[in-house]
């Protein structure tokens, strides 16, 4: 081959920009669903938990917890002091798997508990006694506090073996936190439901490790659930520009941030050229460009035609709900549901099988198929 062709080829390879990754997002030509606003007047509805099909707990990031019965909001009293700064505030809320018998709820919030200035993510449990919280316990508090405004993580999930999982983002300190299991931040955590450390946690025998750590090398995981069929833990996280990811979490594994990533700094400068490395897990899927993934949910009901077993992820950045079709362990189709609806903060499947989304500045919307 003539050197000039090699030169042109190499020039092309080395200067071509990151392409949108496949499958490219589609906008449906026919829309077979509509929405109904079921909770309004909440500026940033961060977390939601269904007590029943017509009763929901909803958090407002600035520091309020509402119990909503058929659209009527009641403010719950007895919350601890919330550190509302940057992306931090009152974040996720979830019901104990045995909530019907014990009325226990879990919630995550930024807390400034401790001696140092600033705050960090905390997981709480409490008993929901009608309109007030009783027996509020802090069951995990990430340290140290920092005045940084970013990456609190905070999504909560449960498996069927008596564990609670939650995430803490890298707290704006990517060089020190995510790769160091002796430090909080950039981790998925696993605890027993009473807050104690499971004896089979991966780093239980590491002297200085944070014993609650279940996986590490994360940036800012804000979508998390147990897959309804495989029971595996699915997590989506905000990457840097062009590096948002879905990961299926394996115990004790390293998900690479910031040593490997498909993204670049917001400013356009490079973080690393490396996207793969021995001993670090590859994402199940990554988004280029970034969508700003928030909550995630699987649709398991027969309510929506053709949506069964699809994954739904909210996009904060492009203001739609994304539908992802999975086939043979691969994302084969992506589609915009409710394009331009607003910043989608969360998505959940209710006990009635309907999908519910929370949208900033709007509230909670129920997705209803058209007749």
């Amino acid at each position: 081959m003539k050197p000039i062709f090699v030169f042109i080829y190499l020039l092309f390879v080395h200067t071509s920009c990151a392409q949108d990754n496949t499958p490219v997002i589609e906008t449906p030509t026919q829309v077979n669903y509509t929405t109904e606003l079921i909770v309004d007047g909440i500026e940033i509805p961060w977390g939601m938990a269904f007590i029943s099909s017509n009763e929901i707990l909803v958090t407002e990031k600035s520091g309020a917890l509402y119990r909503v019965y058929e659209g009527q909001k009641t403010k719950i009293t007895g919350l601890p002091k919330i550190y509302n700064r940057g992306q931090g505030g009152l974040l996720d809320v979830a019901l104990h798997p045995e909530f019907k018998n014990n009325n226990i709820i879990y919630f995550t919030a930024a807390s400034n508990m401790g001696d140092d200035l600033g705050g960090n993510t905390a997981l709480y449990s409490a008993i929901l006694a009608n309109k007030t919280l009783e027996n509020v316990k802090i069951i995990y508090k990430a340290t140290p506090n920092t005045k940084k405004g970013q990456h609190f993580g905070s999504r909560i999930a449960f498996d069927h073996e008596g564990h609670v999982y939650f995430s803490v983002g890298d707290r704006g300190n990517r060089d020190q936190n995510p790769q160091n299991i002796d430090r909080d931040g950039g981790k998925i955590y696993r605890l027993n439901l009473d807050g104690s450390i499971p004896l089979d946690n991966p780093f239980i025998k590491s002297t200085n490790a944070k014993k609650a750590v279940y996986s590490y090398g994360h940036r800012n995981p804000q979508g998390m659930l147990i897959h309804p069929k495989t029971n595996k833990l699915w997590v989506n996280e905000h990457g840097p520009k062009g590096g948002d990811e879905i990961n299926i979490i394996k115990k004790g594994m390293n998900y690479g941030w910031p040593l490997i990533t498909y993204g670049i700094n917001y400013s356009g400068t490079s973080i690393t050229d490396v996207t793969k490395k021995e001993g670090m897990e590859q994402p199940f899927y990554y988004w280029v460009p970034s969508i700003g993934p928030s909550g995630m949910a699987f649709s398991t009901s027969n309510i929506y035609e053709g949506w069964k077993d699809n994954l739904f992820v909210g996009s904060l950045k492009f203001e739609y709900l994304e539908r992802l079709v999975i086939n043979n362990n691969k994302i084969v189709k992506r589609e915009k549901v409710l394009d331009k609806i607003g910043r989608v903060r969360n998505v959940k499947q209710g006990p009635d099988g309907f999908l519910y989304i929370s949208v900033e500045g709007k509230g909670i919307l129920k997705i209803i198929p058209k007749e």
Partner: protein
Amino acid sequence: MKIFLSIYFLSLWFFTGFLFQKKTKSESIKLGLEIYQDFCVQCHLTSGEGVSGVFPPLKNSDYLFNNIDISIAGIKYGLKGQINVNDENYNGVMSSQGLDNEEIADVMNYILNQWGNNYEKFIVSEQVAKIPKTILGK
């Protein structure tokens, strides 16, 4: 004694002025850059250009320069509802970031003097402290 007292008070005045000296505008701008990168850059972007129709620009923004106090209140208390910036309408939500008055002054000084923006006056925390939520009209 008179002389002693005058010298004493003169030096007291001099030293308090020296010890409790307010930061300069350029120091404030420098601190404002850190706040900007931490709390603002994700939406308003690195050159203050924003995203047309979604996140209003700060660079060369008529709204910002015509509404200094309301902009301060927006950072302090959060801002929502329709605004018009450089002949384009924006109807989003900017939530309060929990910054203290000092930090708000710093970030205002930064955005008012970057990317070709130029604001002669110097915003100090006392000015931020005085701005009530009511000026947002809600």
